[in-house]
């Protein structure tokens, strides 16, 4: 274990800020992953772009995406370690969201292949990705505003019998499953402290509440890997600690988290590993403490006029 990593690691409590420690909830899936082992295994990984990980859940090779003449993403190789929180950072326009879309098949790369849990997902349509155990959220929150919070939650459950056209007119076929889904959704809402909004239209929630709802809804899928696109963007500071606690809580139940973030404080606080992108390429990888010293990262951020540039002194 390197000095920087050890130092940084000591700053981060295992399960996020204690004051917001999540309630234990049966609705949350528990995966059989040794989180502590997964995290410590990262210490063996070299700090270089495209570094291979001991137990990767997601692997991408030669992923290239062009828009017209512009190459938005050009990633030779990237791996995401199972059971840890990985942050994807980079200046504006670095191609983070595009890479996200490519990894979740919401966009098709011009070339490249992706493996999830060892299975090729190149030809898998976006809607089937959830079935593989990978769920994403969006930068602009997609709370379904004219549905209630509980309807939003119930939508997340997979393999619902009542979602087939012919079964839907015969409630007797799906009522029992629906009740199970509903009680699981209610438990999750309690866990996220949103039970009092259960029957409100999602459109009436605040920005941070929508982010929470989106995350809770994604968990209804019972995913192995959660991909969060800027989970903290536009969130009221009072809510950020709670959100962070929930994210680390996911990891501690064995889920893999990959998230895009601008705010370096958040990245330092919760991530186990950081991947830095600039101009469509991965330019650096390493534990959060190592990133601030990386010359390529410094150049990329100083070279861009982005106003929320890294506060590079922090955490190193």
């Amino acid at each position, binding site marked *: 274990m390197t000095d920087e990593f050890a130092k940084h690691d000591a700053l981060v409590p295992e399960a996020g800020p204690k004051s917001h420690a999540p309630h234990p909830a049966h609705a949350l899936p528990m995966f059989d992953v040794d989180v502590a082992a997964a995290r410590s295994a990262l210490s063996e990984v070299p700090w270089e772009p495209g570094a291979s990980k001991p137990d990767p859940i997601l692997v991408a090779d030669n992923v290239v995406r062009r828009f017209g003449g512009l190459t938005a993403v050009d990633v030779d190789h990237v791996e995401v370690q199972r059971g840890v929180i990985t942050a994807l950072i980079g200046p504006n326009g670095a191609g983070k969201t595009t890479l996200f879309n490519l990894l*979740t098949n*919401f966009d098709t790369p011009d070339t490249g292949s992706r493996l999830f849990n060892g299975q090729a997902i190149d030809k898998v*349509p*976006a*809607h*089937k*990705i*959830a*079935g593989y155990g990978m*769920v*994403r*959220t*969006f930068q602009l929150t*997609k709370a*379904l*505003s*004219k*549905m209630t919070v509980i*309807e939003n939650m*119930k*939508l*997340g459950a*997979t393999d*619902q*019998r*009542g*979602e*087939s*056209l012919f*079964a*839907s*007119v015969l*409630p007797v076929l*799906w009522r029992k499953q*629906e009740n199970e889904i509903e009680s699981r959704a209610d438990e999750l809402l309690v866990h996220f402290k949103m039970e009092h909004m259960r029957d409100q*239209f999602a*459109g*009436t929630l605040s920005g941070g509440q929508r982010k929470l709802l*989106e995350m809770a*809804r*994604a968990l*209804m*899928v019972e995913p192995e890997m959660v991909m969060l696109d800027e989970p903290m963007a536009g969130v009221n500071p009072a809510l950020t600690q709670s959100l962070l606690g929930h994210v680390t809580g996911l990891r501690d139940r064995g889920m893999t988290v990959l998230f895009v973030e601008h705010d370096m404080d958040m990245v330092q606080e919760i991530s186990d590993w950081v991947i830095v992108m600039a101009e469509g390429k991965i330019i650096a990888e390493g534990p959060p403490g190592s990133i601030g010293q990386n010359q390529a990262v410094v150049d990329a951020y100083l070279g861009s006029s982005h106003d929320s540039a890294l506060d590079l002194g922090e955490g190193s």
Partner: protein
Amino acid sequence: MDYQAIIESLFRGLIGERFIVFALAAIGLNLHFGYTGLLNFGQAVFMAAGAYGLAMMVATVGPRLNENTGLNMSETTLFWVGVFTAVVVFPILFALVMGIPTLRLRADYLAIVTIAVAEIFRIVARSPRFDWLTGSSDGLTGFSGTFYDLSPFSTTGRYFFNLFTGNQFFLVLVGWTILAIGTTICWLLVRSPWGRVLKAIREDEDAARSLGKNAYSYKMQALILGGMFGAVGGMVRAVGFSVAQPDNFITDVTFFVWVALILGGAGKVFGPLVGAALLYAVLDSSDTVLRQLVENDYIPSSFMSGTQVGQVRFMIVGLGLVLLAAFRPQGIFGNKEEMALDDR
């Protein structure tokens, strides 16, 4: 002024054949637009599919089949085969043609293609070249006998406060039964997990896909099912007036359905019924009032002639669509939270 005629037209508008036809079409459009967010501007084509599916099977295709294959289906058999064609086969075909190219694209492409299909239908149905099939601009007749043979009412008597003849009354009763069944099905559908997925797609397709829902497939299912409701409406129209003509199903007819839907409230189970009743009560009674004003020279003929009265209702519909979409997208009785038009 003949006030009785005005009141009669008001009531016929509220409960009569036209109301039934447009309420059924609007139930279908409600599944398309109100619940799934599909911009279908070709509902009239689905109505035409229903009308022509039946009329062609009984009047042109069926007899030819009998001739060429020696099947010898009776007119009654042909009628029921026609009903099946009208309600199942044609709507599926039309929905596939409209949906396959567009349902993966942004919402307005469906609008363009549905209007294009309506125009294709108009050109083909009116073409003398297909006279043997569609009866060109005169359309087809003589296919509704089997239906009226089932009527228990006397053809000479008047029913329901003298509003309807026996045949009309039979049609209206059957129509209301279909409406009741249709509304119940719709009610069950939209309260089910299936309906929940539709609403999610309406709100945000990508979110639905990220949660594992095959948006394309659900949109196609909604397009087909809503098209079937439209086809039933078109079939009722064809049987009710005993004729299937291309001009009954021009694109402008679609806009009537839209006004009915938005008026009653898109995304509400009873919206189509309320909207169609209101629309036809307003249109039919204002039509009668205007005609009487023109006939009795209260309105000078230099300002408005008899044929121009018919055009006024289209203006009302157009202006209604503008004002509703701009000011009351939630329908005249709706509340703000449930607005179906905004937020996209």
